[in-house]
C-alpha cells in the first residue's frame, strides 16, 4: 500500500499546525458529548428534512412518498489552511475560465480543434455535444455559470501531499446546500469552536449565486425574473433546489409551470402569466424541451430551446456544457488553459489513460489491478472499477467490457486519496475525502471559501458519492 496523507496528522503522527486548535478542543470534550451531538445532528437533519431521495427507490406503492435518506454528517471538520485555499482559488478561477472559453469555442469557431490541441472527433462526435447550440450566442459568453470542481489531495512518495482535479462538473453540479447546512449545523452544535477559530464564512453563497444569475439575463431586461427549475420533489437533489430557491427568494418551478409563447417563456401564476428571464435549471439537457430533445420528457417545457436560441431567456447552465466535463475531454484541460489563457495550469490533472488510444489501452489492460477504470460518460460513482479493491472476477468483467468498447472507458492510477479523522462505529478513524468547491461565473468569477467535503465512510473505500454511502463534513478555510 502506498503511504497515505492524513489531513490532520503528519507521517510521524503529530497533529498538523492548522488542526492544533481543534485537536486541543477535542481532547477537552468528555467522550459522551460527541455522541450526544451526533444524535442531536441526526434529529435536526430529519426534522428539517435535509434528505435526498434514492434513485430507483422512489416508488414503493406511494405509501411512504419515496425513500428519503439522510446524508451522514461527520462532526470533525476538514480544515484547509488559508494559504492553500488561496492557491486553489486561483487555480479554480483559471480552470473554469478556460473551460468556459473552450465551450464557447466549440460552439463557435472551433479554433482549438483546428489547432489540433483537442481531437475534433472527441468533441463533435461526443454524445454531450449539442449541434443545436452551434453558432448560438449566449449572454456574456458564459456557459457553465455554476461549476463544481472535484479536488482530491494525494500523497507523494515523500509523504507530502498534492492537490489534483479529479473531475469537472459543468452541467448541474449539486451539493452546495449540504455545504451550507453543514456549516449551520456545526455552528449550532459547537458555537464555542467558532469563537476559537477564524473560519471563513460561506453563508453568502446564495447571494453570489443570485448576483451571478441576474448578471447573465438577456441584455434587454432591466429587472430580470430568475427562477429555479426542478424535476420535482422525487428528484434526489430536490431539497437543494427548494433550499436555493428559498434562500434567493425566487420561485421554484417545475416544467408544468412554464410555457413558451412567441419565443418568450412564461410561468403560470395565480395572477396570470409572468415572463421568466433567467432559468437556473436543475434538469438535464435531454429533458429540457420535449420538442427539441427527448419527446417523452414531462420535466421540461416545449419550445424552450427556441426561446433560448432567440436570446429571450438565459439557461444556467447553458445547453451543451457536457462536452467539456466529459472524462474523455478531461485530459486536455491543461492544454486548454495554455491555449486560451497562455498560462501554466495552477491545478494538477490526474494522469489519464484513454482506452480509445491503442497504446493506452494496452497499458490499461495490463495494469487493471492497479488502476481506476471509469466510464467516460458516467457519473455518480456507478460503473467504475477500483483495481486494488476489486476481486479477480470483477477485474475480468471489466476487462471484457473495456475490450468490447474501449472508447467508453478511461483509466487513472489509483491515487492515495488523503484521509481525515472521522467518527465511525469503533471511534475515530481516518477515512478518505475529497472536496467540491463551487465556482460561479457571470460578469465575474466568484466563489465562497471552501466547498463540500465528502467522505467515504467505509474503511478503505475511495467512493465518496452520497448515492454510494458517502458522508459529508464541514469544510473550514482557516486563517492562521
Amino acid at each position, binding site marked *: 500500500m502506498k503511504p497515505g496523507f492524513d489531513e490532520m496528522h503528519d507521517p510521524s503522527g503529530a497533529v498538523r499546525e492548522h488542526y492544533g486548535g481543534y485537536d486541543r478542543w477535542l481532547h477537552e470534550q468528555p467522550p459522551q458529548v460527541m455522541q450526544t451531538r451526533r444524535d442531536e445532528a441526526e434529529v435536526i437533519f*430529519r*426534522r*428539517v*428534512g435535509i434528505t435526498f431521495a434514492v434513485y430507483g427507490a422512489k416508488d414503493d*406503492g*406511494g*405509501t*411512504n*412518498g419515496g425513500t428519503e435518506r439522510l446524508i451522514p454528517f461527520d462532526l470533525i471538520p476538514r480544515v484547509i489552511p488559508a494559504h492553500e485555499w488561496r492557491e486553489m482559488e486561483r487555480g479554480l478561477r483559471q480552470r473554469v475560465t478556460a473551460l468556459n472559453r473552450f465551450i464557447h469555442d466549440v460552439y463557435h469557431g472551433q479554433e482549438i480543434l483546428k489547432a489540433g490541441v483537442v481531437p475534433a472527433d472527441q468533441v463533435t462526435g461526443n454524445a454531450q455535444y449539442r449541434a443545436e447550440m452551434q453558432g448560438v450566442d449566449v449572454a456574456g459568453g458564459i456557459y457553465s455559470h455554476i461549476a463544481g470542481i472535484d479536488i482530491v489531495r494525494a500523497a507523494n512518495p515523500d509523504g507530502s501531499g498534492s492537490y489534483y482535479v479529479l473531475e469537472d462538473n459543468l452541467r448541474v453540479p449539486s451539493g452546495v446546500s449540504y455545504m451550507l447546512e453543514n456549516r449551520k449545523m456545526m455552528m449550532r452544535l459547537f458555537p464555542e469552536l467558532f469563537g476559537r477559530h477564524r473560519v471563513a464564512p460561506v453563508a453568502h453563497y446564495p447571494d453570489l449565486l443570485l448576483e451571478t444569475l441576474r448578471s447573465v439575463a438577456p441584455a434587454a431586461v432591466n429587472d430580470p425574473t430568475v427562477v429555479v427549475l426542478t424535476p*420535482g*420533489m422525487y428528484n434526489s437533489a*430536490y431539497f437543494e433546489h*427548494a*433550499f436555493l*430557491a*428559498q434562500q434567493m427568494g425566487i*420561485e*421554484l*418551478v*417545475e416544467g*408544468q*409551470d412554464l*410555457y413558451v*409563447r412567441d419565443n418568450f417563456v*412564461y*410561468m*403560470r*401564476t*395565480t*395572477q*396570470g*402569466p409572468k415572463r421568466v428571464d433567467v432559468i437556473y435549471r436543475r434538469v438535464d439537457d435531454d429533458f429540457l424541451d420535449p420538442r427539441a430533445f427527448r419527446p417523452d420528457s414531462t420535466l421540461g417545457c416545449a419550445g424552450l430551446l427556441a426561446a433560448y436560441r432567440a436570446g429571450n431567456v438565459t439557461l444556467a447552465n447553458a445547453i451543451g456544457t457536457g462536452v467539456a466535463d466529459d472524462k474523455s475531454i478531461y485530459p486536455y484541460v491543461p492544454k486548454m488553459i495554455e491555449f486560451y489563457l497562455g498560462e501554466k495550469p495552477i491545478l494538477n490533472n490526474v494522469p489519464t489513460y484513454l482506452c480509445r488510444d491503442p497504446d493506452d489501452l494496452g497499458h490499461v489492460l495490463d495494469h487493471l489491478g492497479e488502476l481506476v477504470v471509469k466510464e467516460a460518460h458516467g457519473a455518480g460513482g456507478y460503473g467504475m472499477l477500483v483495481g486494488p479493491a476489486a476481486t479477480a472476477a470483477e477485474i475480468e468483467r471489466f476487462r471484457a467490457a473495456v475490450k468490447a468498447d474501449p472508447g467508453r472507458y478511461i483509466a487513472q492510477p489509483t491515487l492515495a486519496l488523503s484521509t481525515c479523522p472521522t467518527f465511525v462505529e469503533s471511534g475515530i478513524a481516518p477515512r478518505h475525502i475529497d472536496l467540491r468547491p463551487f465556482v460561479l461565473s457571470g460578469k465575474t468569477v466568484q466563489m465562497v471559501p471552501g466547498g463540500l467535503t465528502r467522505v467515504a465512510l467505509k474503511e478503505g473505500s475511495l467512493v465518496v458519492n452520497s448515492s454510494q454511502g458517502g458522508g459529508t463534513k464541514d469544510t473550514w478555510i482557516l486563517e492562521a
Partner: protein
Amino acid sequence: MLSRTADHLFWMARYMERAENTARMLDVNYQMSLLPQSEEAAERGWRGMLSINEVSGDFAKRYREVTPHTVIEYMVNDAANGSSIRSCLMAARENARAVRGTLTTEVWETQNQTWLEFQRLIGDGAFQKSPGEAFEWVKFRSHLSRGVTVGTMLQDEAFHFLRIGSFLERADNTARLLDVKFHSVPHDLFGNGAGPIGARMRNGIAAVTGGDGLQSQSQSQESGNKDVEFDFYHWSAVLRSVSGFEVYRKVYRNVIRPERVAELLILRPDMPRSLAACMHEVVSNLHRVANEQSKDTLRLAGRLCADLQYGRIDEILATGLHAYLTQFLERVNALGTGISRDFLVPVSP
C-alpha cells in the same frame, strides 16, 4: 405566486384539517363506545363514521366486521384509504415538501415532524392502545400547524390560500358530521322523510321557533326517558367533536336540544367550526387573492356566505336538514372547483 404552489398550499391545509376532523369524529365514537349502549347503537356510530367519509363500500370490501378495532385501523392507518389520518398527514406533508421554500421554516418543520411522529406512534401501537390520547395528539398537531402558520407566515397570497384550504375543508367536514349525526338518531326528527316522521319533525321545530317549553317537554315525554338520556349523550358527543360543548352551554344556557345544536353548528358566526364562520373566512381570504377571472367564484362564495348569515334554523329544518346539508356540500364542492379553475389549475396560455 405560481398556481402550482398555491395548489399545494391549498391542499396541504385541507389535508391537515381533514386529519384533525377525522380524529375528532373517531374520538367521539370511541368515547361513546365506552358508555353502556346497545351493540346496534355502537355499530351505528362506527358505520356513520364510514359513511361521513363516503368509504363504507371500500371498507366492506376489505374488512369483515364493523368493530371499533377495524374502523380505527381503517380510518387511522390504512394507507389504501385516502381518507385515513395516515393518508391525510402524509398528503399534507408531501404538499408541504413540494413548496417548502414558500413556507416558513417553522411551518415546514411542524408538518414534517407531525408525519415523522405519526409513524413513530403507529409503530408503538399508540392508536390501538390508547386511542383517546392519540386522537388528542392529532388535534394538537393540527392546532400547532395552524398556529405556526398564523404566527410566522407573511400574510401574502400563500397565507390566504392556506386559510382558504383550512376553512373550506372545515365547512365540508362540519356539514358531513351534522348530516350523519342527525341521520343516525333512531327517532330522527330531521330526516328527509315525510309522513308521521315529517309531522313529528315539524312538531319539534315549533318547539324551537315558538320557544314554547311546553311543547318541547311533551315531546320528551313522548320519546321516553331512555331516549332523553341517549339524546343527551348523543348530542353532547356531537358538540364535543367540534369542541362545542362548552360553547353550547355558554350560548344557550339551556338543555341540549338537537335543533339548537344544528343552529350553533350551521349559523352561529362566532362558533369557529360553524358553517357560517368557515364560509366567512373563505370569503374574506378569497377577496384578498381575487384576480381577473375569479368574479364568478367570488359571487358563489359571497352568496353561500350571505345565505348562512341571513338564514334561520326553522327555515332550514322546514326544508329538511339532510336536504339542506346535501345542497350545502354541493355548493362547497362547486366553490372548490371554481377556486381550482381560477387560481390553481394553470391559466391557459
